[in-house]
Each structure stands twice: as structure tokens, then as C-alpha cells.
């Protein structure tokens, strides 16, 4: 697959202030096709806030967000999603009362659904749109190996399955960029390694650029080409994952000083 050199997602000097607290301080990120970048930092460092800014849930105090070259700073989340930026949530947010298949079809709604009038009159274009939605959802469900769960209520699934469905719903929007917020939280190690393989597959075969926030260092180290470290809202490191482990500032802020003391002893 020919990598497209133009950035899919470009974030410049993004800042967010809550009252007196600078939660995100001049955050920068460039994601090109098939990038796989990790974002780590202590709890409360501003990772989720950065995600919420990028996806339009919060309005930035300053800075720019460009998606595929379009300036979408301050746009509503559904506009940003349609422009090609999809995400998952730290505390899974599925449509609990809908089935797995319906959840995934919702991801395709923005691109394929028939208009209101066409729906109410059930014109041929309505049936065509429903057919397309279904076919796409089916293919996605097959590839995610969710076939057995398709008719189950999403709220009744196990934690791990819910995570997969949520990623599936994000993929159903056919994004260029995928933001994953702690995808391995609550998964056991074997589920985590399955998830890693899956993320890699999505990244490599579909060419989707991925930014992943995670505390599980084995996932971050095993997966990411590039690593960003955020502390108290500001980037303190960006570079290869291996370099992060020896970086003074990163150790100080995140990996812990006492460990180093012990290792030296």
C-alpha cells in the first residue's frame, strides 16, 4: 500500500484551560497514513482531555486541529467523525440497549443512511441504503469475529467483547485516523495480546493511522512506532519507545524514581 505523505491529522499548539488549571498545554501531533503512535503519562496528565479536544467534545482554548488538511478547530464531534476521525472511550460507551449488529450499523449511518423523507415513504433508495449498511456491517462483524454475538444486546457482553464492538463501531465510520483511549483497560494478558494483534492488523492492512493511550507498557512498547509522553498537560518527550525508557524526564514523571534507585542499588 502506497503511504500517503500528507498528514491525516495535524494538531498544532492545542491548549485547554479549565478555570485556573491548564489541562493541556500546547500539545502537538502529526499523524500520517499508517502511523501508530502511543501517548502515555500519569493519570490526570491531560491525555483524555487531549482526545476530547481532538474529537470536538471540548472546545480548545487555543490551537488548531486539521483533519486531512481541513481546519476543523471547534467543529462539532459528528462533523469531525464524518471527516475521518473515529475514537473509542476509556469507559466503554456502547449503545447498550441495541444489538451488536445495530451498534456497528450506527457507525455507518452518517455515510449511508437514506434521508428522512425517503425513510418515511420507504422509497427504493431507502432499501438500497439499508442493504449497503447491512452488507458493510456484516463484513466488519465477520472480520472482527463477532458473528456469534451479532444479535446479542451490547450491554450484556463481557468487558473484552464490548471493547471489540466499540472498536468495530469506530471502524464502521471508515476513518482515516483512530484514537484508542486505554483499549486494554480491564483486559487480561491473553486478551491484551489478541488486542495488540488486532490493532496491528487494522493499522497495517487498512492503513489507518492510530493514536493509542494506554497504561499497559507491554502494549505500548510492543506496538508503537513512536511514543509521546504527556505530563501536567505538556509534552515532555516524543520519539522512539526505547529512548523513552532512558529519558530522565520521562522516568521522573512517569516510570518512577524509586524504581531507578532500586535498580541502581
Amino acid at each position, binding site marked *: 500500500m502506497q503511504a500517503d505523505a500528507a498528514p491525516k491529522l495535524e494538531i498544532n499548539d492545542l491548549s485547554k484551560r*479549565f*478555570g485556573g488549571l491548564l*489541562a493541556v498545554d500546547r500539545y502537538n501531533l502529526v499523524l500520517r497514513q499508517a502511523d501508530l503512535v502511543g501517548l502515555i503519562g500519569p493519570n490526570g496528565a491531560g491525555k483524555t*482531555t487531549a482526545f476530547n479536544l481532538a474529537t470536538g467534545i471540548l472546545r480548545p482554548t487555543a490551537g488548531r486541529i486539521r483533519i486531512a488538511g481541513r481546519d476543523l478547530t471547534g467543529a462539532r464531534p459528528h462533523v469531525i467523525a464524518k471527516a475521518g476521525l473515529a475514537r473509542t472511550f476509556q469507559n466503554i460507551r456502547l449503545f447498550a440497549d441495541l444489538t451488536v449488529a445495530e451498534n456497528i450499523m450506527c457507525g455507518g449511518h452518517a455515510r449511508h443512511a437514506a434521508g428522512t423523507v425517503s425513510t418515511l415513504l420507504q422509497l427504493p433508495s431507502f432499501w438500497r441504503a439499508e442493504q449497503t449498511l447491512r452488507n458493510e456491517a456484516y463484513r466488519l462483524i465477520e472480520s472482527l469475529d463477532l458473528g456469534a454475538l451479532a444479535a446479542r444486546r451490547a450491554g450484556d457482553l463481557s468487558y473484552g467483547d464490548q471493547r471489540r464492538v466499540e472498536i468495530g463501531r469506530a471502524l464502521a465510520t471508515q476513518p482515516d485516523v483512530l484514537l484508542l483511549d486505554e483499549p486494554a483497560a480491564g483486559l487480561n494478558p491473553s486478551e491484551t495480546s489478541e488486542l495488540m494483534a488486532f490493532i496491528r492488523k487494522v493499522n497495517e492492512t487498512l492503513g489507518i493511522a492510530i493514536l493509542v493511550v494506554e497504561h499497559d507498557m507491554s502494549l505500548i512498547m510492543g506496538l508503537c512506532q513512536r511514543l509521546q509522553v504527556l505530563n501536567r498537560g505538556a509534552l515532555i518527550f516524543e520519539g522512539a519507545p526505547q529512548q523513552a525508557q532512558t529519558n530522565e524526564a520521562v522516568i521522573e514523571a512517569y516510570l518512577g524514581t524509586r524504581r531507578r534507585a532500586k535498580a541502581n542499588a
Partner: protein
Amino acid sequence: MTQYVFQQVINGLALGSLYALLAIGFSMIYGIVRLINFAHGDLVMIGGFATLALVSAGVPWPVILVFVLCVGAMAGIAIETVVFRPMRGADQVTGFIATLAVSIAIQNSTLMALSGQPRNFSFPAFMRQRIDIAGSSASLTDLTIIGLTLLLIGGLFLIVYRTKMGQAMRATAENLTAARLMGVAVNRTIMTAFAIGSALAAVAGLFWGGKFGQIDPLMGFEPGLKAFVACVIGGVGSIGGAMLGGYILGLAEILFVGLLPQEYSGYRDTFVFLLLIVILLVRPSGLFIRQTEERA
């Protein structure tokens, strides 16, 4: 002209006192269990009928006042324990529907028991006289209502800000989980908030009857809704805000009717609820609470 305006202001303050009494209870209950208690207005009716029963039994007025406070408190406790406590933890809308159901049940049970016929209600005759103040005159009824309301609100502030129970109530309202972790018995605390709020509403019923001269089983509906408007004006959940909201609403309503030409007075309630919708849209957290952006 100044005489007229003065009388309108006193009238507005008296009405505002009623709204304030109701709104404070409403706000306390919302603050502590995040429940919009639609049945709160019906305690006005219960207070009104309790007063009427005691008056016809010949009980002296100061005793009636105390009794009505107790009746209101007991009614509040009963509603809380029987209906709302089992539903605590359900979502807000479910709770709201339940309060709507309680309100309809109370109203219609009273209708069944006492019929919808309005009953006459009056304070002792001497309350009808007018008092001269600085060249203008005001009715003793209005002045009494204003005075007693301020006393009751003062007492409430003492309880809330000077006693251990009050402190537990504020803590529970702000963060129920943390309050439990401090060893606060939240069920008892919530019950107390219901009791105090409901007692104030029942006294508002006593005043309401005295001011308007009539009571009926459905009388609580309108003041209940308006207490909510008063809360929204002041910021739902804040006791001081509810009090100010009540007075602002009372004054605004009376001045709307008193100062505009006659033909607009029929739009009084329309005006009140347009005000509500506008405030909800412009400052959903109320006039006196600073807007803050939640950290998502």
C-alpha cells in the same frame, strides 16, 4: 404613585415569601438527592387543609403554626420513605415520573375525600387591618407573612450552617459518597432534609390560604411549579439562591401585573414560564452561580 408602588412591593414580597419558603425546600431536596420533587407543591395543599381543620377545632394560631410544621415534616418523611427511598439510584427521569405520580395520587385522593369545592379560609379579623408605614399603608397579613418567613428562613440557616446535622446535610448534598465514607448516616440525613423542606412548604400553605382566602385540593400545583421556576432563577440546589429566586419571582410577577396595562394581566403565568425557559437557556445554572465548564 409612590404609595401604589410601595403597596405593590409589599404585596410582591409577601408572594415572594411564599415562593421562597417553597423553593428552599425544593432546592434542599434537589440538592441532596438530585430529585425534582413535583409533589412538593402538594404539601402546600396539605398544610392548608391541616390549618383549616385545626382552626375549626378552635386551636390557637401559634399552636397551629407549630402543628402545621409537624404535619408537613411527617408528610415529607412518609413520601420519602415509602416512594422515593426505594427508587434512589434510579435515573433522574424515573424519579421525576414517580414524583409526578405521587402528586397526582395526593391531589386526587384529596379530591375523593373532600371534593373539589374550594373552602373559605381566613386569618383572624384583626389581620385584615392596614398598618401605616412612612406615609404608605400595608396589610398586616402581608407584613406577618414576610416577618414569619424571614424568621423561619433565619432558623433554617442556623440549622444548616451552625449544627452538625446541617453540616452533614451540606456534605451529603455535595458528595454523597464522600459523606458516607465520613460516617454520615445518609438515610437519616436525607430524611431530615425532606422533613425540613416539607415543613416549610406546609407553612407556605398556611400563609397561602391566609393571603388568598381560599384553599382547594388542586391548589398546590401552581405554587409547586413556580417554586421550581424560583429555584432555576437562583440556581437549583442552592438554598440562598432559592430564597432570592423566590423573592425575585414574587416581585416580578406582581410588578408585571401591577405596572403593565390591565389587558396584559392574563398573561401572568405565560410570562413566568417564558422567563423560566429563557433562564434555562441563557444561564442554566441560575443567576447567582458562576458557570463552570465540567472537565469531561
